[in-house]
């Protein structure tokens, strides 16, 4: 069973899942970098993204077009959450932010379940027009969707890179992430940057959710675990580091995929945490330090 073909299949699956983790983790790390807040409700934003895309496909819109809409909508929701949720508790105990994001999980998850369950029962999957088409690469069969998914994920990452490194708001965002007070003194309105980064983070979560929904059946509760893993990814990569989120996300996807293949399904989640613990024993602040 240990032939090159199946190894390649496992690797490609890992890269695929890793790209979804990468999008989730990048959103989390952008938010953390600027606001020093970890939004545990990231997985719920993700599932709202998947759900809105699902609705769009049911209305006859191409799913990859629908994703744009759901990304935008959930991004706006993120802006609202920052403005009326996290901003008021800024400066109180750190644990309060975890508390608030747990409250947000309850609200977002059950609000979604309330509209989801009556129509879709337990699980739904986003159907694409290319669901049955394959690229046959000899050793490896790749679904069209997987290729499109990878292309979308990486195009978005490229766009984000251009935004962060070649536009004025992107520069301000990196500045606020490196030194908040310094940015304020330079005349940057960091509160606007907070809203912007939360909006982009939430949008990335929605996109990750939509892609997840194309690959897997999802339920309103399916976002919790991926979000926690995305959190583990940004810890692994170094909090606040986008580079860390990309490397960590892909590494996580691949390691998980191989662990499932070699050790069996019940080790899938635990192996990822073993990796995290080993890395943190060696580098207590992650692979790339904060602000990279």
């Amino acid at each position, binding site marked *: 069973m240990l032939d090159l073909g199946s190894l390649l299949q496992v690797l490609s699956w890992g890269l695929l899942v890793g790209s979804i983790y990468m999008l989730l983790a990048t959103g989390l790390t952008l938010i953390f970098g600027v606001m020093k807040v*970890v939004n545990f409700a990231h997985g719920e934003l993700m599932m709202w993204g998947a759900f809105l895309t699902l609705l769009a496909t049911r209305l006859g819109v191409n799913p990859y077009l629908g994703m744009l809409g759901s990304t935008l909508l959930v991004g706006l929701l993120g802006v609202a959450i920052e403005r009326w*949720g996290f901003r*008021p*508790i800024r400066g*109180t*105990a*750190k*644990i*309060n932010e*975890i*508390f*608030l994001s*747990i*409250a*947000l*999980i*309850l*609200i977002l*998850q*059950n*609000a979604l*379940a*309330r509209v989801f*369950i009556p129509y879709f029962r337990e699980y739904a999957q986003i159907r694409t027009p290319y669901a049955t088409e394959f690229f046959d690469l000899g050793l490896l069969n790749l679904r069209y969707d997987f290729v499109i998914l990878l292309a979308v994920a990486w195009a978005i990452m490229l766009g984000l890179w251009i935004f962060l490194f070649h536009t004025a708001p992107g520069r301000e965002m990196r500045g606020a992430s490196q030194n908040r007070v310094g940015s304020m003194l330079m005349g940057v309105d960091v509160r606007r940057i907070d809203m912007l980064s939360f909006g982009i983070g939430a949008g990335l979560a929605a996109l990750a959710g939509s892609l997840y929904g194309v690959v897997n059946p999802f339920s309103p509760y399916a976002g*919790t*675990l991926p979000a*926690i893993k995305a*959190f*583990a990814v940004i*810890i692994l990569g170094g*909090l606040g580091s986008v580079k860390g989120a990309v490397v960590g996300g892909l590494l996580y996807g691949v390691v998980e995929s191989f662990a499932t293949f070699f050790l069996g399904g*019940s*080790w899938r*989640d*635990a192996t990822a*945490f*073993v990796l*995290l*613990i080993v890395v*943190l*024993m060696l580098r*207590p*602040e*992650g692979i790339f330090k904060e602000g990279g």
Partner: protein
Amino acid sequence: MPAVGAGEPRHRRRTLGIALGMALAAGLPLAVIRELFVLQILTFVFIFAIYAQSWNLAAQSGQFSLGHATFLGLGAYASVLAVDRLGLPPAVAMFVGPIVPAAAGLGIARLCLRLREWYFGMVTFGFTAIVQVLVVEQFGWLTNRWDGVDAARLWPAGLSVEHVAVLNYLSGLALMVGTYLAAAAMTYSRSGLAFSAIHDNELVATVSGVDVRRHRLMAMGLSAYLAGLAGALNSHTLTRHISPGIFGVEDSIWPLLYTVAGGLRTPEGPILGTLVVRVFWEWALRSLGGFDSLILIGLALALIVTFFPRGLYHLVTRFAAWLIGRATRLAPGAR
């Protein structure tokens, strides 16, 4: 915030007063409550207040665990299996079993000595996932894998359902008050001051001569023991069964939720928080049901943290101070 002044008589009096008040306030209604489910909900509150207290103890030394379910679950498993395999009586196993999570807590704290804040939280969370797989796969012969193990009842056979419910209630109450006294004694002792110092700034604490390593280990060891005790008590009284589901995300979130709502780093906060949140939760579930109740609970929690970021107990102390201030001002000849 824990007030400074180790072992002051004022603190001792206040703590004893509150403990007595809790025992009375919870003991007296026994004479009138006849609904079993009310007793059960309150027993649940007591047990989870112990659990929240244990989490708070670790948090006092700056170790914000996101994986306390590890200790809750290990305590339950160890105690239940000690009854099953070693033949210990449940009342003894309940106190011996938690040595296992205490050892695990020491080990995890030792591994995490260099980690802080999020890094610490995530690793503790990771250990829960790892312990779950170990319990299911490596110790499957002992733990019956995903099916879990039935737990022996704390009380001898032959008692009526009502008597058992009352005894469960009383034992939960007694252990909660005991844990409260222990936690308060800890908070106001020299070690409590060391915990606080480590929480506020580990570097400054080290420079001031606090043995950070020893105190972090001590806090986690104690905390894990108490969490294990709560788990053992829970499985011998309420759930009567233990399965790997206990190593889930939810059971790690509860103590954080209860403690922060009640008041972080105070011995009273975890108890008040557990009581208020849990009773509100049960009320919402019963009156609204399903998704709406959970949305409402989420909104209520968000409001609590927005308007009372220091927890509900802070509100109580402020109200008490206001009352006392008013009374002294109104008393004749006060000036």
